């Protein structure tokens, strides 16, 4: 510990602290631009110059290490003169047109200029003008405003993992720019907008739509991946205008993924449905709530009377809240219907665990691991911020190994990597298990078939990463969870975890995957394989939210009654018989339980659009209409307290409830790798126009294979190809993906262009279109 005195206040700080750290710890504000607690120190803006006793000149607080007995003056004449001098330099070439700048009102330069600037400028020369850059559909530029703090550059390199922005040229001609002809394509790129202390980088979708002081700031929780990033939703006249991060060190730190940040565009989409609607004689008609609810109640009762309880199935996406799913479960139980399912993207429903599957530990604990093995995940695209956290851990010494059906760049060092065909994911995991068994001199569990043949060197390398590590984790991603042999992958992964003392974890696919398990919304299985007479669909769109979308669509089309509780009209109008407009997350209170088992409740940030109602209220009244007891809730909190009664922790468990037989299977022929792309995963991101213009969205519209496979098929990059699966056809542009194994065809799933196709990991045929 070191003693330091700042502006006369004595304090002790740990050795290694900077003057800035010390000042922050006692709430002394030192003006700064380039300094950011999550980024490396640049010391280039010079705004944080302070006076240090015995130093001949002012020193930058951000880069000056505290020495014992140091005396610092942050507001002395010397310090303030230096700070004002820097402010003058920052302003000479900065446009002084705050009234027309989108950053106005939330600009650090503007704020600090009030304290450190002059009322007039001594600079009478020509001002600099810098050409704007195209950084893609999300980030707007006004590069003349740039003050060269390099926060954005450091962010792309240090946090996002790939330096997509750089400083070109020299002196006052220095410019921030992307690679020539390239845009910023990171899945967490939007954070540079928050980091930019001036109006050089602003939000393209939000541009010129509101002033910060017109906006209310309301807390919420991201409804996308299983992390549960905390949000500040900014609202004007009951319209969501923008989403910003709410800092939570335990979850999203100070970051947001672009999906969390920009999907709000869908909330104001023209596809929003605002009135209950009933289809009669093939024609849609608006109805009042009472009529619509009675129509639903009578319809369900009618189907059950005629075809029995098993003829009805309820499906919901795991993006629905705890309250919604709990009431859905309760409503169906009231009807005697057992089938309630949220694992819509799953293909294998056989896994049985002792409790709700989860990350197996907190996010912060995971980040402190010595080694992590990720199985079947695109990681960056499935869990953008978790990927970011693991990237920081790797920098601190964590070893990351992967077993994947692709070789995607994680923008962090992989200590070992085993790439397999998607249908050989089980065999890949077993090979690593065999390698471990060999190293550790243990036998494989009797239920796991010991594959034959040599263990590949890559599998041994993966095993070596885990072996002997104090704190290790084995994580299952979406590709694993959606795999037709998920239970086998899970069992083999559990065996690896057991052999190495690692914690087994499931990276939740959606915001409330854990919550869905806790309320028992996983009892249906594949409810579309054998078509039902009635489907009750909550926030779910058959062809986009179900793994075999084509099959689900066919089942829905054949059903007598389809009830859609949805925020959006497009899919529902096509296939439903009755539509009940329900609130997206922004218009309802609710709770998500994230992958670490943390329940996060939130309130609606705007009032429901038109006659839209929160789904929990709709389900609650439907319960009344059906005459069920126990549907008298007046607040969502009452429902939550009942749904999550007691502690969550003891109800989470990744332990297998029964052994799973893992059998080696041979593979041949073309196989599809059909992961759900980042901006198709849920009904909001699919409808966010700006996200749909990103590079990630463009990649999702391609058919990809390695060069050898393409050559065998007579295809080349840029061709158009026709892919066929179970009678469904998709025509796509061809691109090379060198990271794939031979004979693997990567076609993203649940995409408008590919929705006619079938399983994510299944045989596929491809021909030139």
């Amino acid at each position, binding site marked *: 510990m070191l003693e330091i005195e700042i502006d006369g206040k004595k304090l002790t700080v740990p050795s290694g602290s900077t003057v800035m750290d010390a000042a922050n710890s006692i709430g002394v504000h030192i003006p700064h631009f380039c300094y950011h607690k999550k980024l490396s*120190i640049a*010391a*280039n*803006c*010079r*705004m944080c*110059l302070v006076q240090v006793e015995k130093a*001949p*000149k*002012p020193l*930058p607080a951000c*880069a000056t*290490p505290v020495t014992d007995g140091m005396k610092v003056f942050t507001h002395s004449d010397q310090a303030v003169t*230096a700070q004002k*001098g*820097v402010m*003058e*330099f*920052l302003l*000479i*070439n900065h446009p002084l047109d705050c009234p027309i700048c989108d950053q106005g009102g939330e600009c650090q330069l503007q704020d600090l200029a009030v304290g450190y600037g002059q009322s007039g400028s*001594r*600079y009478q*020369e*020509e001002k600099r003008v810098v050409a704007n850059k195209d950084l893609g559909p999300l980030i707007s530029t006004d590069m003349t405003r740039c*003050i*060269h703090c390099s926060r954005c550059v450091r962010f792309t390199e240090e946090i996002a993992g790939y330096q997509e922005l750089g*400083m070109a*040229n*020299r*002196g*006052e*001609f*220095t410019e921030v720019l992307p690679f020539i002809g390239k845009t910023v394509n990171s899945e967490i790129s939007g954070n540079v907008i928050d980091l930019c202390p001036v109006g050089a980088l602003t939000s393209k979708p939000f541009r010129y739509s509101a002033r910060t002081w017109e906006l209310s700031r309301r807390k919420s929780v991201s409804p996308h991946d299983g992390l549960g990033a905390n949000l500040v939703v900014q609202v004007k006249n009951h319209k969501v205008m923008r989403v910003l991060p709410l800092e939570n060190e335990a979850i999203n730190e100070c970051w947001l993924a672009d999906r969390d940040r920009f999907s709000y565009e869908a909330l104001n989409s023209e596809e929003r449905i605002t009135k209950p609607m009933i289809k009669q004689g093939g024609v849609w008609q608006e109805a009042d709530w009472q009529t619509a609810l009675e129509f639903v109640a009578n319809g369900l009762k009618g189907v059950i009377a005629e075809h029995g309880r098993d003829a009805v199935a309820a499906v919901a996406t795991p993006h629905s809240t705890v309250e919604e799913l709990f009431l859905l479960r309760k409503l169906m139980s009231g009807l005697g219907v057992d089938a309630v399912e949220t694992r819509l993207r799953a293909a294998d429903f056989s896994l049985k665990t002792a409790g709700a599957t989860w990350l197996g530990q907190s996010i912060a604990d995971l980040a402190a691991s010595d080694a992590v093995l990720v199985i079947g995940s695109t990681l960056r695209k499935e869990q953008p911020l978790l990927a970011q956290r693991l990237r920081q851990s790797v920098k601190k010494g964590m070893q990351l190994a992967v077993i994947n059906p692709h070789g995607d760049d994680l923008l962090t060092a992989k200590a070992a990597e085993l790439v397999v065909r998607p249908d050989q994911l089980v065999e890949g995991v077993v090979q690593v298990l065999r390698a471990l068994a060999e190293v550790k001199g243990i036998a494989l569990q009797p239920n796991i078939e010991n594959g034959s043949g040599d263990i590949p060197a890559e599998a041994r390398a993966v095993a070596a990463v885990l072996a002997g590590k104090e704190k290790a984790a084995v994580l299952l991603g979406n590709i694993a969870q959606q795999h037709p042999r998920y239970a086998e992958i899970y069992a083999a992964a559990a065996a690896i975890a057991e052999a190495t003392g690692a914690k087994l974890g499931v990276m939740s696919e959606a915001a409330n995957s854990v919550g869905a398990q806790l309320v028992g919304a996983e009892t249906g299985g594949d409810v579309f394989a054998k078509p039902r007479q009635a489907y009750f669909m909550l926030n779910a769109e058959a062809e986009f939210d179900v793994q075999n979308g084509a099959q689900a669509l066919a089942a829905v089309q054949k059903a007598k009654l389809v009830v859609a509780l949805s925020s959006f009209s497009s899919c529902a109008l096509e296939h439903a018989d009755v539509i009940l407009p329900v609130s997206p997350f922004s218009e309802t209170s609710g709770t998500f339980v994230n992958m670490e088992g943390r329940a996060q409740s939130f309130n609606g940030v705007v009032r429901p659009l038109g006659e839209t109602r929160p789904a929990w209220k709709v389900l609650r009244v439907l319960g009344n209409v059906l005459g069920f007891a126990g549907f008298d809730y007046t607040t969502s909190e009452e429902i939550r307290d009942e749904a999550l009664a007691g502690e969550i922790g003891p109800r989470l468990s990744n332990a297998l409830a029964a052994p799973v037989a893992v059998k080696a299977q041979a593979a041949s022929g073309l196989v599809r790798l059909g992961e759900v792309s980042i901006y198709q995963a849920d009904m909001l991101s699919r409808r966010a126009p700006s996200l749909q213009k990103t590079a990630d969205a463009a990649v999702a519209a391609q058919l990809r294979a390695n060069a050898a496979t393409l050559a065998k098929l007579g295809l080349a990059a840029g061709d158009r190809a026709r892919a066929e699966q179970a009678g469904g056809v998709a025509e796509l542009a061809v691109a090379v993906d060198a990271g794939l194994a031979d004979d693997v065809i990567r076609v993203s799933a649940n995409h408008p262009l590919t929705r006619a196709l079938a399983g994510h990991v299944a045989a596929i045929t491809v021909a030139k279109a």
Partner: protein
Amino acid sequence: MTVYAKGVVFEGVDFDNPNHWRLEEYVKRGGYAALKKILNEKITQDEVIAEMKTSSLRGRGGAGFPTGLKWSFMPRNFPGQKYLVCNTDEGEPGTFKDLDIIVSNPHALIEGMIIGGYAMGITVGYNYIHGEVFEAYQRFEEALEEARAAGFLGDNILGTDFCFQLHAHHGYGAYICGEETALLESLEGKKGQPRFKPPFPASYGLYGKPTTINNTETFASVPYIIREGGQKFLELGKPNNGGTKLFSVSGHVNRPGNYEIPLGTPFADLLEMCGGMRGGKKLKAVIPGGSSAPVLPADIMMQCTMDYDSIAKAGSMLGSGAVIVMDETVCMVSALERLSYFYHEESCGQCTPCREGTGWLYRIVHRIAHGEGRPEDLDLLASIGDNIAGRTICALGDAAVFPVRGMLKHFRSEFEYMIEHGQSQFAALS
């Protein structure tokens, strides 16, 4: 350029012999004797550093830091790789001495670096050569090959356990890469921008490893010091200013060139060696230590001796030893305009005061030089200078300000005349 006076660095070099730079000739005039002496007599690292301290050799790159002291800062028992770097990125306007060293006596530098490596326990060195002297770079590469072939450089030097690898690297001409940490960044393949200090290169240098960086002339002085003893070197100059030093004299003298003379030599003597003023004109002013050194008027300069302390006392600095001589026809406004343009052009742009301030300084001086000066401009120049100097990551900011301060201190009336009349009072003379 031509070397007119020889001292330590060019000792015994026969410029008339076209092979004077080759290893064979270097050995004939006593080259590599110092290295042999160290290895044969098993002189310890501490003894070498002590000899360097005795010599009072001060860094010849411009800052004048005592070399022996710098060498003693190197963590000798650091367990990993350490580096020795030579700064031949000679880019200061007026300076052209290091160029002559690697062209005319490259082995003195190589031997000096090998000895430095020995003294600090370093096995790998780099010589970063300015990008605009490519032929000199090629000459140095050739000299390295000779040294390797002769067993002076590489593994098991002269049959001992001592190993030292030396590599040449040429930059691309950015002035900022002469700043030692920008040089390291550039050597690592990054954009040449200074690092903030601390940490200093002795603890976090090239590739994050302990690194010592010295100027070409500094290293080239080392063999003499080891061979002849630090005391003898010191006595060549004057106390605290040991040895001889190369002065690159340019401007309005009859014989511009490199002069290696004892530190403490009166400027008047140096001017005489240069054949006096060209065309018999009167001396007006001298920039005594490269473009960043404040200008000194003739009367002050004629009282100075050429050493660190005397020039500093006169209010300027010896710097790299680039002596820019200006006669009575020179318009100081135009001279400053050219100097300010240089620093504006060469600012790396990393930190605010230098990035924004150098351009501002230049634009004001440019305006004054083009008859558009305003009465308040001179105070503004001084104020901008105060806001740059001492506020930047590296010394380039200071370097841009010193010429402005020097000119305003000694020649303010010329600037005032120009602002008032819209043209130089020397317009008719030049």
